[in-house]
Every structure is written in C-alpha cells, then in structure tokens.
C-alpha cells in the first residue's frame, strides 16, 4: 500500500508539473477563425493564453506572440469561448439532488452536497465544448435549494471531489444561485401546494419571514444575546434578497412568468427566468422588467400542458424585445454534447447569429454574475475555450478540444475522450438514470 501511495504521489507530481508547464508557458493558437463574442469574428486570428488567462486576442499580424510561447497551428479551425450552461442537472447520479419530499421550500439545501464528480455527464459536457455549468436541483419544489456554478476542471488531476469545480467568491465561498419553480412541476399532494395561488402565497410567506429574520439580525447589532437562532433556510433567502444569490426560476406559462416578475419586484430579487416556453407571449413585459431569460429549445412543443406553446422562435422574439437571452441544456432533457444546436435552431427561427452565439456564452455568464471572468475571448478573462471543426451552428461541427483555465480538458483525438464524445460501450457508466419526470418503464426500470 505504501509503495502504491508513493507511486501515486510521484505521478501526481509529474501531472502537477505538466499542469504548471501548460499554464506557465504562454501558448499561442494561430490561424483559426476566432469568435470573440464581444467583438467581431476574426477570420484568421491569434489567441494567446498564459497562466490560465487570456493575454491577447486579435488578427494575425496584429497580436504580439510572446517569446518562448508554444505556437499551435489551428488554421482552418474555429475558436470560441467555452459554453456556459445556465441550467444543468449533471452530476446527480441516482437522483437530481437538492431538496427531498418533506416539503416544498428548502432553500438551505446545497446541491453540491449531492454531486457525483465521476458522473460521465461531465465528460460529455466538455465534449460539447461546455466549460461552466450552473448545476441545479430539480423543479419539483417551490424552492429546491442552492445551485452551484461549476468550472469543469476535469484534467490534471482528475477530479475526486466537487471542490475542484468550485468558483469561489471574495469570501472564499463556492458561488451558486437559488433554484425556484412555479407552475405544475412543484404542485403535489400536501404539504406541497395544489394550485398556483397557494404556490405564490407559500413563497411570499417565506420571503417575508426571511425579511423579519434579517431585521432581527440588524437590530441585534452583533449582540449574541439578541441574535435570532441561525436558520439555514432563511439565510439563503436573505442572500437572495441581497443579490448575493441569483434566483434561477423555472417557469413556463405566461401567467407564471408574470408571477415571478411580481415576486422579484416585491422582494428585490435578482431573477433569471428559466425555460420560458411562453416567453414569446410576454416578451415586452419581461423586457420592461429588465429580467433575463434562459431558454430551453426542445424538438417539439408539448410533453406537458405548460410547454404546449414552446417554439423555436422564442429566442429571437426575446432578443428583438431587448431581453438578455441565453440557452440552456437542462441536461438530461437535452444532451450537453449538442448544446450548440439550441442556438442554431433559434437562428433557424429568426434569432441573429451574434445573439445566438452570445446566448451560448456571455449572456449565460452574465446570468450567473460571472461575465467579468468568462463568456468571451478578451484579455484578462479565463482561458476557457473550444477549438472546433466547422461552424458552431452547423450539424457537422465537432469539438476538437476544450480548454478550461489554460488546461486541455477534452481532446477528441484521445480514445477515452472520443468514447464520451460519440458514445459506445462503457460511455454510460456512472450516469444518472433517474430524472424527475420519467417513471420506471421510461428509464428501463434502472433507478
């Protein structure tokens, strides 16, 4: 055992050295078409990264390649920022994680206490060019818990704990939002609500309680004798009201969307509307409230009443109304490997190319409050990007490599990575067989 331990240590030192090397020495990717997002696409560009950050990006000849840089010829390829998925359920092997069936409101529950980092979904996500995920609990509760903003640092060393995916805030805490839902998914038998009116009431009641909790803390002015007992549920709601936690709100129908907007106004919540099947019906109202939308693109309308009017046009209609618009996979609902397709189908139905590409990257970053760090290719930002064959909106596009913070996390040329990219025997191990909405027959009884 001891010998093995030493070997492992030695090996990890080698790996760390490699990591250091790849991060310390500048690398210049030369000749690709570069999709920067915040500026025009460059036909033949240069991307220079160093120590996990982008140091320069621009047209060939205009960018100074540092001495000693490792030059990589990527002529004929396309480079774009790593995709940001604002709504994912990857990592929940054996279940969605988050709150349990004991009640409809459980904001104190953290999704990162239930994520399996060995879930093969992470491998598939980087194969799709994704680099950042908002991993969420499900929509079966009014408030199902705290979400996690995860960086897919899958290489050198391979992740063993969820901590390796954390993006920490200035206090050193892992960043995430708060998952909420309204409409039919969160309606069940008591103690869950059975109607929309009750759903909204239960949520308002909790936020009012949280406001009073916060007032007590303020009034206590640090006096332990006057402080209320610590309440993890109310704490999370206070964080939401103070803007520290963005509320990611599942909502489909037009009236449910309006309910979220009312709630956001009443409690001063920074809210992102998720799915928004009916968003096209109330686009102007959403725009007037300055609330962003993360849209799901699915192959047909229906599957439930609320998604009856889901359309490929939603992204374009919201864009034209001036709403900040992103897409998400809702992985397992859609597969992260084909995430780019969501943007392409939106373009098919009228969205602008620039808007659709932004909706896969920077817009999502903004919805997570991470747009200063990720979402576009600009100096100073994290070196999170994908090298592609063919245009990202084409069905013939393939992710060749995915990089996170200057480290390659996916290489289509590697046989293992290739297996996860296309599937095949063994590719499905360590996966989540169960989602909220499938019963035994649908999952092949494989819960």
């Amino acid at each position, binding site marked *: 055992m001891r010998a093995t331990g030493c070997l492992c240590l030695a090996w990890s030192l080698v790996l760390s050295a490699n990591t250091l090397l790849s991060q310390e020495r500048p690398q210049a990717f030369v000749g690709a078409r570069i999709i920067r997002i915040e500026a025009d696409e460059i036909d033949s560009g240069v991307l220079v990264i160093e120590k996990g950050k982008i140091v320069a990006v621009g047209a060939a000849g205009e960018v100074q390649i540092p001495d000693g840089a490792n030059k990589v010829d990527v002529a004929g390829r396309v480079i774009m920022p790593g995709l940001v998925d604002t709504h994912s359920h990857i990592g929940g092997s054996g279940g969605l994680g988050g709150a349990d069936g004991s009640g409809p409101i459980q904001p104190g529950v953290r999704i990162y206490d239930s994520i399996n980092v060995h879930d093969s979904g992470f491998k598939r996500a980087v194969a799709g060019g994704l680099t950042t995920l908002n991993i969420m609990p499900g929509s079966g509760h009014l408030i199902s818990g705290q979400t996690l903003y995860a960086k897919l640092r899958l290489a050198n060393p391979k992740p063993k704990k969820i901590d390796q995916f954390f993006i920490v805030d200035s206090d050193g805490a892992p960043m995430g939002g708060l998952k909420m839902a309204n409409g039919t998914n969160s309606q069940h038998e008591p103690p869950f609500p059975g109607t929309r009116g009750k759903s909204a009431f239960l949520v308002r009641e909790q936020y009012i309680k949280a406001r009073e909790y916060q007032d007590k803390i303020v009034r206590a002015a640090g006096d332990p004798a006057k402080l209320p007992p610590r309440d993890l549920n109310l704490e999370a709601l206070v964080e939401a009201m103070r803007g520290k936690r963005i509320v990611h709100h599942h909502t489909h129908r037009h009236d449910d969307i309006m309910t979220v907007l009312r709630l956001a106004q009443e409690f001063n919540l920074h809210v992102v509307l998720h799915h928004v099947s009916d968003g096209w019906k109330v686009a102007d109202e959403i725009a007037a409230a300055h609330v962003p939308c993360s849209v799901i693109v699915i192959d*047909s*309308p229906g599957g439930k009443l609320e998604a009856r009017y889901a359309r*490929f046009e939603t992204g374009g209609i919201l864009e034209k109304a001036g709403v900040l618009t992103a897409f998400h996979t809702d992985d397992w609902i859609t597969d992260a490997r084909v995430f780019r397709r969501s943007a*392409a189908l939106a*373009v098919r139905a009228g969205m602008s190319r620039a808007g659709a590409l932004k909706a896969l990257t920077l817009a999502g970053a903004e919805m997570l409050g991470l747009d200063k760090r990720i979402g576009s290719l600009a100096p100073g930002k994290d070196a999170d990007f994908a090298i592609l064959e063919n245009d990202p*909106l084409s069905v013939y596009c393939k992710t060749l490599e995915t990089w996170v913070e200057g480290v390659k996390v996916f290489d289509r040329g590697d046989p293992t990575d290739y297996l996860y990219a296309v599937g095949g025997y063994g*590719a499905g191990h360590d996966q989540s067989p169960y989602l909220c909405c*499938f019963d035994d027959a649908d999952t*092949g009884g*494989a819960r």
Partner: protein
Amino acid sequence: MSRSPFRSLVCCFVVATLTCSTASAQVAIRGKTIYTMAGAAIEDGVVVIQDGKITAIGQANQIAVPPAFRVLEAKVVTPGLIDAHSTVGFSGILNHAHDQDQLERSAPIQPELRAIDAYNAQEDLIEWIRSFGVTTIHAGHAPGELMSGQTLVAKTFGKTASAAVIVESRAVAATIGPAAQKSGAKSPGTRGKTMAMLRAELIKAREYREKQQRAAAAGEKGEPPARDLRLETLGRILSGEQPLMITNHRAQDIASALRLAKEFEIKIWLDGASEAYLLIDDIKAAGVPVIVHPTMARAFGEHDNLSFETAAKLVAAGIPVALQSGYEAYVPKTRVVLFEAAVAAGNGLKFEQALRTITIDAAKILGIDARVGSLEVGKDGDVALYDGDPFEYTSHCVGCVIQGRVVSEVVR
C-alpha cells in the same frame, strides 16, 4: 347502430369533396437539386405529380409541366420523409392520461390491440412533424410491455385514421429488456421469464394455427377452433405475413431476439438496439433490419451505451437501417426524425446514406417502397422541400406535399 339514409348521404358528400380536391391537386416541384433516392441526384430538375402520383421526373429543360399546374420551387427537394418508428397520433401533445394511447398496461401480452382503433389523425404533433417534411410514419403501440399491440403506417395528412392510414396492421410491437419487466405476477420480472413468456405465447399460437390448418384440410367436416384475436394476430407473425418488431437495447437482449426469430422462423425487426454495434456479424447473418434509436436519445438506463455512430457502423456492414423519432415520455413529446438523421450525418453517415435511412431504406424495411421512399414515376407524390442542406440546423423546410396535395407551406 342503425344506418340512417341521412348518414349515408353525409358520407357520400364527404367522399365526393375529398375526391374532388385531390383531383384538382396537380402540382409540379422544381428543385435546384432533387435527391430522388433512385439513382443520382438531378440538378435543375422537376417532379410532376398528377392525381396524387408522380407522372414525370427529370431535368426541367426536358420535361414540360402541363399548363395550369401549380409550380413550387425549392433549392433542395427530397422524397417525403419516413419516420420508421414513431408514437405520434398515439402519444398526444398534452401528455395527460386521456391523450396517451400508446401503451395499454392492463396485461403484458396484447398483440390483438389494433393501432387503427387508437390513431388520432388530427393530433397536433402530426402537423408539427409534417412541417419538417415527414410524410409517412410507422407508429402504434409503444415499447413498455412484452407485446403491446399492433402498428400501422400512415401518411401525415388525412382527417380520419382510415383516410391517413396506408397499412392498417404492419407489425406487432414487442419489448425485451427491463422496460417490459415489472414486479407482480402478470409481467415478467427477469430476462429469463421474458423469453419464456414470449416463447410460450408463440407456441400456443402455433398450435392454434395447426388446428386451423387441420380444420381447413378436413374441408366441410373440419372444425376450426373458436376465433381468438390474439392467436390470430400471432398466427400472422408465424406465417411470415407480419414481422415482430422487438424493442431492445442491451446486446444480450438483441441476442435473445435473434434466437427467438430462429426458433420460430419468424421475421423480426430490431428496434432501438443501442448496443447493436456489438453484434454486427450476428445481425447481418440473421438478415435482420435495424430501426436504430433516435441518434440523440438520452444515454441512461439500458440505453447508456448508445452511440451517435451506431447507424454509420451498421450501414457500413451492409445491414438495412432506418432511423426513428421513437417514444418520448416527457419533453419533447416527439423528436423529429429529420434531426435524428442529421446528427447521424454529422457522425459518420454520408449525406445520401443518412437520407436513405429516412426515405427509401425505411420504406424497404417497412415494405412500403412500392408507394413511397423515392421519387419515381408511379409512386405517391410525396415530396419535401428545403432551402438548403436539409440536415443543417439553420436550413428550413419550406414545403411538404402528400399525394400531390400541398399540405404544408410553413417555413420551419
């Protein structure tokens, strides 16, 4: 129910109206590129459809379009697409108990359930898939029980089931694997029991058939067994008249299906078949076609080893392959087979190979290639029109024609 004279009158009127409007649907479709699926693509071509059938196809400068024909134009023209396995028309858009007719759960073996008695020809999702160029579907009872019922072939247009359907009973749907296993006495709980139950039922049907045959041979004196709709249906499988479509995913279940086909000398179609790439030689030797799962199907449960490249691997081995939209339990309520073929085209299938899996090869497997699947004189005038590569996400389907009738002009 008594037939009132008034009722007959109404029927006659409806028939007359339909015949009239079909007769007036004379249409020609010009395409920059026409993929006929019967020989090389035609550049600057035209398809002429008269009274619902293709009467001429070729280069536009060599074919005169009769005057007064409506002329449609598109960059790319293909045969109307065929979805080799769908549940559209059975599994409704709302996903509520009352619009879900794809699976009867009262018993594990019910091949006697006819698809035509459950098909909702006006279901909203039919319009949806038609707007992407899908003109023919093979649909019916879904996977999830050992033998869930029969399937049919329908055009994606027609007010009633009888107007839309072109093959009333095509196959019997069976499922091998965990999806058909349940606790309790009625359904099998294991793979071994699954096969024992299927074999027992086919043996019963064989004995019934033998009784029928003996009675027929005895002529007037023969006493045929009492009619049994279930055993009659299975008799059509034993006679080779109808195939058993077996949905399964694990390699071991595919092997069981092949064993069953050999034992009873029946025709089977493998459906789903996520791990088919592990048994290519066996499937090929058995001469069995595969209706491959939707390319983008979710990789969990018994499908967890599925691959984007399965269709490409099977086609390369010379196995007949069709693609499908499959059954969806939640959102999306249906997939679009065009998109599933598109992803297969992005993962190893050449363009025309991928197109074959949703046109002529699907038609051949389903036994409907005399009518549909390619653009040839004498075949149904079923045509899909696109403004670019039909597989590209950003192209649009700009029209859809079924039997000479322009049934969709939405740009989608």
